[in-house]
């Protein structure tokens, strides 16, 4: 290996010599946070439950005799029936409820995941840029956010549906594009305080360009609030999706989602209770667990807050 100057060759060799010397890995803040999270029993249990729900939604359908859209003409409006393979009963159209719950959960999770990722991506960059540059840039960018806030999002959803058709994933990319507003505000606030920290000044003194400072020094330090807010966004989007599906703007038949299932189940809750109970249990469990994980993460990432 040839250094540019002789000095660098010497130093490189010195580094290589030290390479053999054991330099223990430090505990990063993330590792510390994980350690604290592991101590939180409710959060750990919730992680396992959510993991199970994910498996249930994505692997489950392969283990069932019925698919979510197949109609069993012999068993319409039937309660749980193990012999026929309808473990959670069938709906008014004779479709297997368990298969539908799995598919619905899958859809809700994908939608929530996609929308959250989109909102985190846009929100973090937008907020960090506005916060870091401050002044006029900040004023203009944040006024735009305020305006977006003021517009009714249902209107946007309808426009999006017109543009994309009723493709659920694209729709929720669109919803993510609206959800980022709050994220951007949170991130901007955090950035305003982080940019006053001395390590940012040190980076400036070290000649770093604004973009480098944002990506290397500010964004990684936003992890705490962003992760916490993102875990809270996931349930919010699942609920939004339920609401939109209820209005008929969301997922299209025969595909379904937890929200759709519940909206179909609730009018017939007295006569066909299994149509409501199944999806409701999954949704409630999922939301509870995500809240616990969010709480656990908040405590783990911000131990001073306790």
């Amino acid at each position: 290996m040839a250094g540019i100057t002789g000095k660098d060759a010497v130093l490189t060799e010195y580094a290589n010599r030290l390479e053999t010397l054991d330099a223990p890995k430090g505990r990063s803040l993330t590792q510390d946070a994980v350690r604290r999270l592991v101590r939180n029993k409710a959060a750990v249990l919730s992680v396992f439950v959510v993991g199970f729900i994910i498996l249930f939604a994505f692997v489950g359908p392969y283990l069932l005799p019925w698919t979510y859209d197949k109609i069993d003409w012999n068993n319409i409006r039937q309660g749980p029936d193990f012999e026929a393979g309808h473990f959670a009963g069938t709906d008014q159209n004779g479709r297997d409820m368990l298969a539908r719950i799995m598919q619905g959960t899958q859809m809700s999770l994908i939608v929530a995941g996609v929308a959250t990722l989109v909102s985190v991506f846009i929100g973090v960059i937008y907020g960090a840029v506005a916060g870091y540059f401050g002044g006029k840039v900040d004023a203009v960018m944040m006024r735009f956010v305020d305006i977006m806030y003021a517009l009714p999002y249902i209107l946007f959803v309808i426009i999006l549906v017109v543009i994309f058709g009723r493709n659920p994933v694209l729709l929720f990319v669109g919803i993510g594009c609206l959800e980022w507003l709050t994220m951007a505000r949170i991130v901007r606030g955090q950035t305003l305080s982080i940019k006053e920290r001395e390590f940012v000044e040190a980076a400036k003194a070290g000649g770093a360009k604004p973009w480098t400072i944002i990506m290397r020094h500010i964004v990684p330090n936003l992890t705490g609030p962003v992760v916490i807010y993102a875990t809270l966004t996931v349930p919010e989007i699942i609920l939004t999706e339920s609401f939109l599906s209820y209005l008929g703007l969301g997922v299209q038949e025969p595909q379904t989602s937890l929200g759709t299932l519940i909206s179909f189940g609730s009018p017939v809750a007295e006569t066909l209770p299994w149509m409501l109970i199944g999806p409701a249990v999954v949704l409630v469990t999922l939301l509870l667990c995500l809240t616990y994980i969010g709480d656990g993460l908040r405590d783990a990432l911000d131990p001073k807050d306790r």
Partner: protein
Amino acid sequence: MDQTPINLLEIRDLRKTFSVAGGLFSRPLTLTALENINFSIRKGETLGIVGESGCGKSTLGRCILQLLSPDEGQVLWLGQDLTKLPAEEMRKRRADLQIIFQDPLASLNPRMTVGEIIADPLRTLRPELNKEQRRGRVLKIMEAVGLLPEMINRYPHEFSGGQAQRIGIARALITEPKLIVCDEPVSALDVSIQAQILNLLSELKDEFGLTLIFISHNLSVVRHVSDRILVLYLGRIVELATGDEIYDGPRHPYTRALLTAVPIPDPRLARQRNIDALKGEIPSPINPPSGCTFRTRCRFAKPYCAEHRPPLETIEDNRLVACHRWREIEVPEEAVLGV
């Protein structure tokens, strides 16, 4: 020292104001943080800057480094005005001018390892170096500041304040700077660690041929490290002289008050000396007193002082003082420290 002292840095007529948001309907107020700052630093010397909180000493450090841009005046680095330099040129210059901060932990990015933190300036300022070369330099500097090589992969929160400050010093040294601004580098540290860091700075200064600007509120520390001392009060220079001159015969009443207020770790001396206690507190820099800004707390003040701002006069050889009455004020040596 040198036969022909070279002025590494020269500050001319520097002025810096901040606007402070007034109420919703009132106009923003102007806070004059620095005014009429003129001084120069020779290569290889240590200039101490002392003053109380709000006197503008940190602002001055940041204006020198162009981390803040002054409103008026010049910052001449080897004759070149840094305030007029285009951003890209200035970025390259930053290799020559570095800074060490007061709060060692706050000055380190908590998400980066020690190695990454120290190497960070190299990534921008020496892009030609590859990863191994950077690592080599990092290890070399770590050794120079007294950090063990096996600490390279650790994170800042695993270190105590003193070690964190060493990391900060290593980061400042890695670009091989000519001038380092030390902004209260030891005031957040424990006593025994303070002394270690002060010694380290003086060793590094000799080893790397550095010029230091040492900003502190602690006159004992400043006197310990500095060749010359600049005393600031409300954003103006009140006195500039060598450490011995300041100690043996402060000319400005404020310097004198500072000197007598410095705690002395010596019970008998501390009991004997007369503290030239200042009345009241520092006035607000938003609305500083007319004339001499120190007059409201000065026991030598005359009506004249309220009307005219004292100019910064050169007295003796290269001493500067800004006081109307410095000639009239007797400086009996024992009055200063009571010794």
